[in-house]
């Protein structure tokens, strides 16, 4: 059976498909969130040097990973939109930005709360913390630039350039703890090494990562639907939706 994938790149069919998918992702996200928090707070053992305070890792690390991952996805879709002039890709990029910014903020905030008792400071200007702060400004810059331009097609193009330029920052964040002396410790979990964490701790953290993914997909689809309605408000199919009261 051949599936015509291009069918879903049309905002109208994407709109109805996304509408069907959102409840599934919300449901899975809630279950994973409950499971992840349960493992994190009740199953995972106390840490040998940080005691109970390390448990903020179950929020901090998923948020930090999502902040970087979502940026790459946002830049990818913004780039596709810029290159091929596909409307839906640019809308997706616009929809990803607020969620990415939120996760960046959570990563910075929980990091500060964690840094004070463990390191003895809320904030230091080391390479890891500074580059993550720059990521936050990139998200804010992307969103404000798009908000400042009235014509959505021009806003897409301008935003795409910021997004693509900012991709440079992602490997800098990731490798900062290897390239430079930083106060932030190295990665506990990486592709080419055995994780430096007890397995139940790792399980809890990975469940929280998947919960964050499901949550992000649900919210981004929802936001994309709203953007589609706004931008396609002049079209026949949106007018028909309105008549049916199916919005």
């Amino acid at each position: 059976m051949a599936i015509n994938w291009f069918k879903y790149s049309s905002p109208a069919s994407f709109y109805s498909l996304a509408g069907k998918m959102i409840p599934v992702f919300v449901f899975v996200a809630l279950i994973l969130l409950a499971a992840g928090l349960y493992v994190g707070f009740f199953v995972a053992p106390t840490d040998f040097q940080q005691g109970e305070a390390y448990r903020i890792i179950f929020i901090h690390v998923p948020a930090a990973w999502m902040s970087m991952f979502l940026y790459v996805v946002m830049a990818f879709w913004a780039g596709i939109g810029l290159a091929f002039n596909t409307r839906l890709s640019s809308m997706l990029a616009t929809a990803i930005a607020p969620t990415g910014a939120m996760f960046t903020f959570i990563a910075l905030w929980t990091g500060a709360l964690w840094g004070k008792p463990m390191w003895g400071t809320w904030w230091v200007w080391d390479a890891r913390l500074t580059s993550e702060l720059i990521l936050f400004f990139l998200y804010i810059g992307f969103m404000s630039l798009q908000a400042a331009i009235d014509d959505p097609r021009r806003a897409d193009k301008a935003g795409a350039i910021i997004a693509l330029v900012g991709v440079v920052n992602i490997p800098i964040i990731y490798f900062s703890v290897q390239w430079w002396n930083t106060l932030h410790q190295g990665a506990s979990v990486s592709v080419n090494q055995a994780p430096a964490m007890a397995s139940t701790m790792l399980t809890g953290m990975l469940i929280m990562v998947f919960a964050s993914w499901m949550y992000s997909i649900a919210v981004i689809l929802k936001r994309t639907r709203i953007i589609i309605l706004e931008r396609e408000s002049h079209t026949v199919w949106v007018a028909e939706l309105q008549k049916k009261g199916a919005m």
Partner: protein
Amino acid sequence: MKPRHKKLSIIIAGVAALGVASVLVLNAFQSNLVFFFSPSQVAAKEAPIGKSFRIGGLVEAGSVKREDSSTTVRFAVTDTAKTIPVVYTGILPDLFREGKGVVAQGKISADGIFMADEVLAKHDENYMPPEAAEALEQAGKAQKASLAQ
């Protein structure tokens, strides 16, 4: 080449050029991005003299001495090659322990003692339950003992 392919290749080339530029810039600024200097770097006079800077390393085991009547602490920071004595007055972070990572900010005095005005703990990336840490330590001791024989 279709126009949109041309556009895509221009974008890819632009991002690649930007990446190369940032690598070069970061490389040039490398010395300024260093958050702390190791004791070996300080011994090799790479650290700024007469100015405030940070040193980082491990708190040498058995080096921590607290003064009775004040919060002044003396300890040594080591990278196992070189060791720098440090004096600090104030409250130490919870994770400040002998044999663990530390970053101290301050100036080095004429007699080679680092006068710290801020001490931060730098922990490693390992997370495990206390029992596992104990077992690892025992295993390490057993290995050392068998090596000594």
